[in-house]
């Protein structure tokens, strides 16, 4: 189910992509820092290189040392929040800082598989980064056997606004007008031609009644 949903997400991401302007300040790389001990500050997790022109999603794996895994497990067992600091660097050297979080147990529960969604505005510069995990499982954090962070980076662009659908409406109106004109011509059929199915039973009934009545009168 989860997998299916992910594919759905992926498609929705792809569908949101338009042709991008070449003049904008493109993203070159993303630098990630996480907090493994509450309020103790951020430590480096990984750095992901991004090339927006060629591909739109990036999958990156980084190793994580054992002590950090232990800290992560501790964080998860205490049901703390896992905070992630993201620095997006552009080709011109501009740095934009973001912060996002999730529950630490989800990170462990999804076996260090996480998804970063970078939201780009209409000029393709980032304004938000969201973190999610591939699983909603928050129980099985003891059997963590991997030492790789697998990060998938998605880019989402805003959709364009709806426009009043005047064209379809005008077409519809024209169709209706045509239909009405056609209907007018068919209206010219006689009353009998149109309602014969009602008139016929009535006539038959009356005939029967008429046939029986004079009989009774006599």
């Amino acid at each position, binding site marked *: 189910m989860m997998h299916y949903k992910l594919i759905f997400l992926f498609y929705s991401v792809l569908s949101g992509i338009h042709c991008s302007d070449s003049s904008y300040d493109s993203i070159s790389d993303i630098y990630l820092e996480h907090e493994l001990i509450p309020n103790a500050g951020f430590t480096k997790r990984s750095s992901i290189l991004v090339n927006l022109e060629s591909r739109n999603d990036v999958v990156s794996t980084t190793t994580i040392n054992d002590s950090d895994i232990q800290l992560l497990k501790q964080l998860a067992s205490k049901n703390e929040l896992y905070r992630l600091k993201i620095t997006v660097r552009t080709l011109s050297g501009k740095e934009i800082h973001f912060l996002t979080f999730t529950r630490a147990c989800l990170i462990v529960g999804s076996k260090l598989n996480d998804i970063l969604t970078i939201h780009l505005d209409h000029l393709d510069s980032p304004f938000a980064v969201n973190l999610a995990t591939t699983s909603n499982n928050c129980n099985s954090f003891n059997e963590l056997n991997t030492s790789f962070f697998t990060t998938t980076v998605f880019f989402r662009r805003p959709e364009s606004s709806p426009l*009043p659908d*005047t064209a379809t*409406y*005008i077409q519809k109106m024209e169709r209706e007008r045509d239909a009405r004109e056609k209907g007018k011509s068919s209206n010219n059929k006689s009353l009998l031609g149109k309602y014969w199915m009602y008139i016929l039973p009535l006539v038959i009934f009356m005939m029967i009644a008429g046939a*029986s009545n004079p*009989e*009774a*009168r*006599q």
Partner: protein
Amino acid sequence: MICNSFKVCIVLLSFILVSVPNANGQSESNRELYDIEGTVMLPNLTTSWLAETIIQLKGGEAVGFLRKNGSFLISKVPSGSYIVEVVNPNYVYEPIRVEINSKGKYRARKVNYIQSSHVHQMPYPLEFVNYMPAKYFYSREQWKVTDFLFNSMVLTMVLPLLAILVLPKLMNDPETKKEMEQLTNLKHDMPEMSEMITSFFTGNSPTAEKQKEKTKAIKSSKKSNKNN
């Protein structure tokens, strides 16, 4: 006719193409300002009406007021396309779109939000002629006897009631009584329809027989009445 409107379309298109960049350019440098004039037909030219009515340009970006003869002036607006509305609390007027191009040429047209390319030219200076009183209220449904009586529900209930009540009364009338008797007879005959049909098909005309049967039937019905 068709040819004509087509021409207008083309003219308008080119007008838009020309005017839009110009308007942009002008808003930055020294902009020419234009006055929009027109008249409003008022239901009655009393002075309180004049004071109540205002003319709004593009939702109130500029306003005009009515003079004693019903004319108005919206002064000093930059070139562009505007909706001109007459605002009166009691009457509704059709708005008009006014387009002033960068050369100061005016064009007034009917407002059509759905088909903006459709041009229906109006005279300039503007003339707000068509008005109608705004109907803000629904009229209350008056309780009328006729409405009540001709209601289908009432009819279906009252008519049988009438039949039940009036028909026995009619029975008292001797002639109708006779007729009724015949009718009830017929009713009694109904189950014997098959018999009737067979007799009909056999070609006999058993009137005498029938007569007897009738009297019998009446007697039996009377008996049954007494039993009741």
